[in-house]
């Protein structure tokens, strides 16, 4: 048992040092290249920002924002200042938007609009939402 543990530790140390030396040996160029994965994520972020802005520009939403005294242009600008994580979070909510126009859909719809405006810091209804303006 003891031997087994010691062997495991020794192996772990060996593997660790091999990894470390490999990472030190990586060519310097690779360290600063923009990888394709990062590129794709960046594109997706821009796409999501775009969709959020389109959502805020939709007739029903625009009217509601104005009814609450929120300038729709301010809302759009604020989307630009959202972090990648916040954009992803909001974008996830958008996916849940009801597609049909039934009663259940309307309730969910309002819930989501309020959630979005909460995140943007225009309303403060849900205690679990941390506004980007906090």
């Amino acid at each position, binding site marked *: 048992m003891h031997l087994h543990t010691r062997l495991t530790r020794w192996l772990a140390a060996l593997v660790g040092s091999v990894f470390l030396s490999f990472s030190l040996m990586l060519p310097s*160029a690779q360290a600063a290249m923009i990888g394709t994965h990062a590129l794709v994520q960046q594109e997706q972020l821009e796409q999501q920002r775009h969709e959020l802005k389109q959502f805020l520009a939709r007739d029903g939403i625009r009217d509601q924002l104005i009814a609450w005294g929120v300038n729709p242009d301010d809302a759009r600008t604020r989307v630009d200042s959202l972090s990648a994580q916040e954009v992803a979070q909001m974008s996830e909510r958008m996916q849940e938007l009801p597609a049909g126009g039934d009663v259940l859909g309307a309730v969910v719809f309002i*819930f989501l609009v309020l959630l979005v405006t909460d995140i943007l810091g225009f309303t403060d209804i849900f205690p679990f939402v941390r506004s980007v303006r906090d």
Partner: protein
Amino acid sequence: MPAPRASALGLMLGLLVLAGCAATGPSAPSHELLPRAAVELVDVPFYPQERYQCGPAALAMMLDWSGTSVGSQALTDKLYIPARQGSLQPELVAQARQHQRLVYPIRGEPQALLDELAAGHPVLVLQNLALPWWPRWHYAVVIGYEPKRGELLLRSGTTKRHRIPLSTFLHTWARGNNWGIVTLRPGHIPATAEPGPYLAAAFDLEAAGLPEQAATAYRAGINQWPGHPGLRVALANHYYTAGRTLDAAEVLQQGVSAGAADGDLYNNLALLLADLGRWDQAEAAAQQAVRFGGPNSRQYQDTLAEVCRRYPEGGCAAETQPGWN
């Protein structure tokens, strides 16, 4: 805290009245689609589904149409989850990719669906045949459209040519979140593709361990959108990973000539040129990247500093200016 709660409730109730019509607006099915010719993709094979196995059957039809022969039974074994009596979208997508197909999620609009059909591409769709709170999920393949009768043709369940009024279909599709994909041989481009999502779809091939198929898709994308820098960067990264630094640099330099360069492209080009020992050009490219700025500007400055540090005969001609953002 009763006061804010009460006002919140009031606000929600008020909005309920307001939003009643707003929610119906954007997705209401419309027949005002562009008039277009009737289409039926008769080449799409038909596998009648066994009980609950519409996912594997639909995917097998898509894959066979695109030229990979797989039986629906083979897919069923991999895809079907008995406890759920069905398959999940990500698993369908992953399986299509394992069969070396580019999977492109179409925009959830009737227009996109019809455009793909018109281009000869069948579309695998997810429908909810019942109601949102009592769902009956179903996968089918859309293979045709008859504008005169306002009907779509589907390979669906045990029906080879399932006719469904467009408006009915759009309702069931909307309840499936308008999810639909085309699966194409790498090198072919979906009719409704946009460069950003296309790049993501091609990269997914690379991430699934199919670098050559991804490269084929990148090349086709560059032909389609010569002005898009990302596709060129992706192809160059592919070459670089394969140890083909010269090819990688050439891809990016062609991008510069085609006017399709951005900060990321110049950044990577600078490092490749430095690896090739072309210091003057490397420095110039790094300077260009810094000039572009943007969200990666920090990285561009590091690149410039790196190139200058490695530059043999006494560093760069133009010193890096500190604080230059």
